[in-house]
């Protein structure tokens, strides 16, 4: 392999866009035996971000694993994004990451320096999160992949699942969308450099600040927005909570470059997959197709989607700003679900 080869050219699909679709995943899991354990508070039957296992009345483990092919050409950047993305599942549950294990797949001829830089990116982010990498496992593979298995701790009464949203809740989103569209366009060298750099920079931001901001407030549900796109993850939250969500599209931060690229048809395959999965439950009314595309766009290391009690919405907005989550937006509300669409776009 040439040392200057672009990492993203080695991958068929990038980042969380490589995720198996939600519909397919449900089929694959169907019929598998589910062994009940009363200590398993959240397992794979809940389509939540991480598993939660109660150890005692005031302590539970939160565990997740996440890995994917390169979303960036710079190995250090790729490592940082993969780690921020894996840690995010712990934050989305309200947990505190403590221990991480590397998962690494590398082509035999990949330069050692590139492999080292991927791992260094992971170590730096895990250290920033206040956790440690205790080891891992690496194998040879034609396509590079990196991620981590992360274990965190949480009080069992303070677990933020995606199933607790209530009518009246206010919805917040803590990072802009468009990552999948921008990185798809970058594969054809059609993404403006500054827009791509800004998207990468957002992907390296830990959701720790957003998690910290939620503490002490009446947050009823939370999930991180990754491969299924905002609407895929919002639909899971709405369905498992039994509510209907109204999203105000003008309040959702979408980089203008992502909208322009969507209008040019530079959309990742995962966007169409997410749309097919969720659109039956989304009333899009007169919303421009490119905006809808951005809402279905698969995100990598995306922000948190938070449903908070309306009485605490202002406090959450202030705490998010205080915790340096500058892109946090109030994007909608939850209502009682009666029938029809689970998500209304306005």
């Amino acid at each position: 392999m040439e040392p200057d080869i672009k990492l993203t050219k080695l991958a068929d699909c990038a980042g969380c866009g490589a995720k198996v679709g939600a519909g397919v995943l449900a089929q694959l899991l169907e019929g598998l035996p589910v062994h009940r354990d009363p200590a398993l508070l959240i397992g794979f039957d809940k389509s939540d971000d991480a598993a939660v296992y109660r150890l005692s009345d005031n302590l539970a483990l939160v565990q997740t694993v996440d890995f994917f092919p390169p979303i960036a050409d710079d190995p250090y950047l790729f490592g940082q994004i993969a780690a921020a993305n894996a840690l995010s599942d712990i934050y989305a549950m309200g947990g505190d990451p403590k221990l991480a294990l590397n998962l690494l797949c590398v082509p035999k001829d990949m330069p050692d320096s590139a492999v080292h830089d991927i791992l260094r990116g992971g170590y730096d982010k895990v250290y920033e999160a206040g956790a440690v990498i205790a080891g891992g496992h690496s194998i040879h593979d034609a396509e590079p992949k990196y991620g981590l298995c992360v274990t965190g701790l949480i009080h069992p009464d303070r677990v933020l699942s995606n199933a607790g949203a209530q009518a009246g809740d206010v919805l917040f989103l803590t990072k802009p969308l468009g990552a999948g569209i921008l990185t798809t366009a970058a594969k054809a060298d059609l993404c403006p450099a500054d827009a791509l750099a800004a998207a990468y920079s957002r992907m390296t931001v830990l959701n720790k600040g957003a998690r910290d901001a939620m503490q002490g407030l009446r947050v009823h549900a939370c999930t991180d927005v990754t491969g299924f796109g905002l609407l895929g993850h919002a639909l899971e939250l709405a369905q498992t909570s039994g509510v209907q969500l109204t999203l105000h599209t003008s309040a959702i931060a979408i980089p203008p470059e992502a909208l322009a690229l969507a209008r040019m048809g530079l959309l990742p395959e995962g966007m169409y997959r997410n749309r097919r999965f969720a659109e039956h439950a989304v009333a899009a009314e007169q919303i421009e197709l490119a905006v809808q595309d951005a809402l279905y766009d698969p995100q990598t290391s995306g922000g948190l989607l938070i449903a908070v009690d309306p009485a605490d919405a202002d406090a959450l907005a202030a705490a998010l700003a205080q915790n340096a989550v500058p892109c946090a937006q109030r994007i909608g509300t939850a209502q009682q679900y009666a029938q029809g669409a689970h998500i209304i776009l306005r």
Partner: protein
Amino acid sequence: MIDARGYSCPMPVVMVQKAVQKDAPASLEVLVDDPCAVENITRFAHNHGYQAAAQERDGGAFSLTLTKQP
């Protein structure tokens, strides 16, 4: 006629974009075998003054006919 078979997204739509920007043809035939490319080229066409009609061919390929709207 553009043969974008064997190319995965986003390359087929980039090939169409280049052809449209160069010659602004009244009509353009495109062959693809990536279903995502059918949708992406249709998106591009509708936003750039073209109508797009897709037809499935044998062997998993699709032909798209782009026609410039008056």
